[in-house]
């Protein structure tokens, strides 16, 4: 293999490893190495985002669509988007409201158009479960848990009635169901963070220290 390529890979692995250790050093206490790595990460992320957006969308739209293909109507959304930067100039900051109002108006319509069918109606229909499944006791229990859980959770958020009787019972069921759900979400979050740490350790032990082959 080309020596320059190998040397480059080794240098890359060392840089990545040292930055990883610098970030992890905050677990002991705040220090300049952590600050440096954090700022480097923020700067690199922003720079990457800006350049990606320019090369994947800004430049093709302006150079290809507008100049080459002559789609001059695209100039309108480009100008509308650029108006957001007038917020930095006090005298003409009001121009940015046109851009924002367009975004808010379109965004609201976009959500109203698409969310009710896929994220509300379909989900509601999915809770219409048979409360008795012949020959499958576990399925029956599962359906009862689902229906009671959904009904209880929705009841929990009735704040206009007194929490007594059936409403109180429903709210209590909802509270316990939500606690189980939040516990599950927390457990999944822990699992995700552990996975990321295991991934970093795999890199340090294989690619950097070569303790594990791979």
């Amino acid at each position, binding site marked *: 293999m080309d020596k320059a390529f190998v040397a480059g890979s080794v240098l890359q692995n060392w840089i990545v490893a040292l930055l990883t250790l610098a970030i992890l050093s905050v*677990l*002991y206490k705040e220090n300049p190495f952590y600050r440096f790595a954090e700022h480097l990460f923020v700067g690199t992320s922003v720079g*990457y*985002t800006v350049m*990606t*957006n320019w*090369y*994947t*969308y800004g430049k*093709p*739209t302006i150079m*290809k*669509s507008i100049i080459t293909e002559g789609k001059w109507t695209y100039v309108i959304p480009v100008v509308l988007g650029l108006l957001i930067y007038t917020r930095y100039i006090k005298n003409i900051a009001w121009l940015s409201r046109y851009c924002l109002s367009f975004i808010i108006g379109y965004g609201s319509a*976009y959500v109203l158009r*698409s*969310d009710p*069918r*896929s*994220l509300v109606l*379909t*989900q509601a*229909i*999915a809770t219409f479960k048979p409360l008795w499944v012949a020959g499958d006791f576990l399925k029956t229990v599962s359906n009862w848990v*689902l229906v009671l859980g959904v009904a209880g959770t929705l009841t929990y958020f009735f704040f206009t009635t007194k929490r007594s009787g059936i409403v109180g019972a429903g709210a209590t069921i909802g509270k316990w169901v939500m606690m189980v*759900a939040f516990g*599950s*979400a927390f457990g*999944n*979050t*822990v*699992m*995700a*963070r*552990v*996975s*990321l*740490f*295991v*991934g*970093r*350790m*795999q890199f340090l*032990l294989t690619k950097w220290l070569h*303790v*594990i082959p*791979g």
Partner: protein
Amino acid sequence: MSFWHTAQNLDRRIIYVVLFLVVTYVLIKPIGLPIVVNRETQRAYDAVDKLAAGSILFVSADYGSSSIPEMLPAEKAVLRHVFRKGLKVIAGGMWNEAGAMHDLAWQEVSKDFPDKKYGVDFVNVGYKPGAGVLLERMISDAHQALLGIDFYSKNFSDLPLMGEFKTMKDAKMVFAFTSGDPGEKEWVKMVTDPLRMPFATAATAVAVPGQMPLLQSGQIIGILKGMGGAAEYELLVKSPGSAIAGMDAQSATHILMVLFIVLGNLGYLMTRKQTT
């Protein structure tokens, strides 16, 4: 200070050191715990397996480099499965790093499939902004929505596979690798629900609870849950990778977490008893 008081107020740096030692030890000396393929992963696998050779699968990388340990092994396993089945892949995404993630996966997987050619079997269209709006545009005219160039700035006219993919309707299935927003909800709202297209996901563990209602309603066929799901898929395609290698360490860490939680709670109960 009593043992229980110490247990309840353990310095978190001790926990970090113990965690570091456990993970390092288990990675160097794996235990070999069994990995059981769960139903959701099997469903995702079966959905891809059912597709006829030559079908186009749209793969979406809606994750960033911070989710690589969970998502990249899953993507590589799925690509291996797809290439073995003779399927074709259009790879895109709604996140900035989508193109880079697909590039990483393709560079590694293509070494095992020298007969698969870029532009014929796999095209990386990369990231294009717009999220749900982009997806909606792709239903009617994918080339215009994607601006006619791929991640490497090649024109679609130079890529034979793009001649077969004019709109999202030309894809037979969508497989999304998601870690947040935009992600699976945009796919469900804009593409897979309206077109009634099979849709499977690989999600970071933190995103899984949010996807369970979509799985329960049938809008998502199957989910690869975090690194565990990636390990299960690697097992199904018989290509062990970093996900399987990391599962022992993951399990050991979880056991450690449970022990610390039990210790802390016992400490609380015992010190409360002592106070009363």
